């Protein structure tokens, strides 16, 4: 799947998690802008994993700070 298609699907997955309706673009930071608690982060990661049938290990999660980086990682993880 190319970046645009991946980004579109991630946008759908993130929608119900974005309770504060933050405007999201590639530079949006998970810790800084979305301010999710750890349980929400876990549920969101699980939702992304299930959507794309991938695993995002904790080690990889630590590298993902922004929305854009998440899209890039998912693109890469799909191989």
């Amino acid at each position, binding site marked *: 799947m190319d970046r645009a298609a991946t980004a579109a699907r991630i946008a759908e997955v993130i929608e119900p998690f974005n309770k504060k309706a933050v405007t999201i673009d590639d530079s949006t930071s998970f810790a800084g802008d979305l301010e999710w608690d750890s*349980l929400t982060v*876990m549920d969101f990661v699980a939702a992304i994993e299930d959507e794309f*049938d991938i695993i995002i290990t904790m080690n990889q999660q630590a590298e993902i700070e922004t929305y854009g980086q998440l899209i890039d990682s998912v693109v890469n993880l799909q191989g």
Partner: protein
Amino acid sequence: MSEGIDEVDRPVMPTGEKGDLFSKFDGLIEQRRALLSAGMEDPFGLVMQRVLSPTVAVCNGRETILLGTYNYMGMTFDPDVIAAGKEALDDFGAGTTGSRVLNGTYAGHKAVEQALKDFYAMDHAMVFATGYQANLGIISTIAGKGDYIVLDIDSHASIWDGCKLGDAEVVPFRHNDIEAMEKRLKRIPEGAGKLVILEGVYSMLGDIAPLTEMIAIAKANGAMVLVDEAHSMGFIGPNGRGVAEDQGVLDQVDFVIGTFSKSVGTVGGFCVSNHPKFEIMRLVCRPYVFTASLPPSVVATAATSIRKLMHGSNKRAHLWENSRTLHKGLREMGFKLGTETPQSAIISVIMPDLERGAAMWEALLHEGLYVNLARPPATPAGMTLLRCSLCAEHTAEQVQTILGMFQCAGAKVGAI
């Protein structure tokens, strides 16, 4: 999840300003200052001035019933245990001053490992300085670069730290969620080594894991299985070997981790296993090699206690009775509990928020009852918990007294 006090079990990296390396703790320092300046007794500054028995101590000047010590089988004051410790202290001295692989293996260390092998009916036993170090050592050593660890998100801090110390890929799944675990196992790349880490009893809510289903799935997907049975030894399962034994799947578990700091009533940790190559761990496991061994008196008390736990069925029955009575009584008063039914010797009371949790904790202490206060971020889902752990030495009358104290304190702070 653990007794982590102001620390989340899963490590997070605090970010601070330049210069003072302590500035990253400013938020926490301020939070504590606010709590204590409101006149609150420091929940984390309790001092036991005298300990009268496994269930009663003088803390902060008051005689107090202990209901948060994990001293499940009340072995801390067992006369045989104490006698064994004194004898070893006299015969072998205060400490070993050496690593297990150098000058720190005494007859007592071999004896306690034999007691563990007999207790679990397993081929190998390896004793560490603490349960924390047992998890740290075994996990970081067996799961290395390129291997995958699949673990429950509510795992104890020592499990998370073991993952962090090793170089494996770490994949958590939602607490006790069998399907989530299976999905993750199936996505692991072909050929990679896999370790599934579970706990028998999760100590935050006192709930148990569906080990039968989870271990079957782990095995079907070619994973090795490690189960931390810290909170079940001595009273869960027909021989007190834990939840895996109770569910009839202990023979499928590759590594059992345990501790001497709960039912055994002293300090130390261990791993038991039937893996034919297990003994090599003694040479390659750094938290085993690069630290001094337990003092002779400690291993002597542990060995005596473990052997006595093999015959503890009456005490065990009484412990379960206490757990059921407390669970039922608290429920009837209107407290919200961590489990629908009593599943272990931990009964966790879920408080509506940190303020009322802390107030309730303090009110109970003034009534003369010590319970464990657990609060975010150490707790799942940001809950504030009053964790009660029962002891086989709590009398039926003490349990009634405890219920009365909950009633008074709960009414005082408006929690029920």
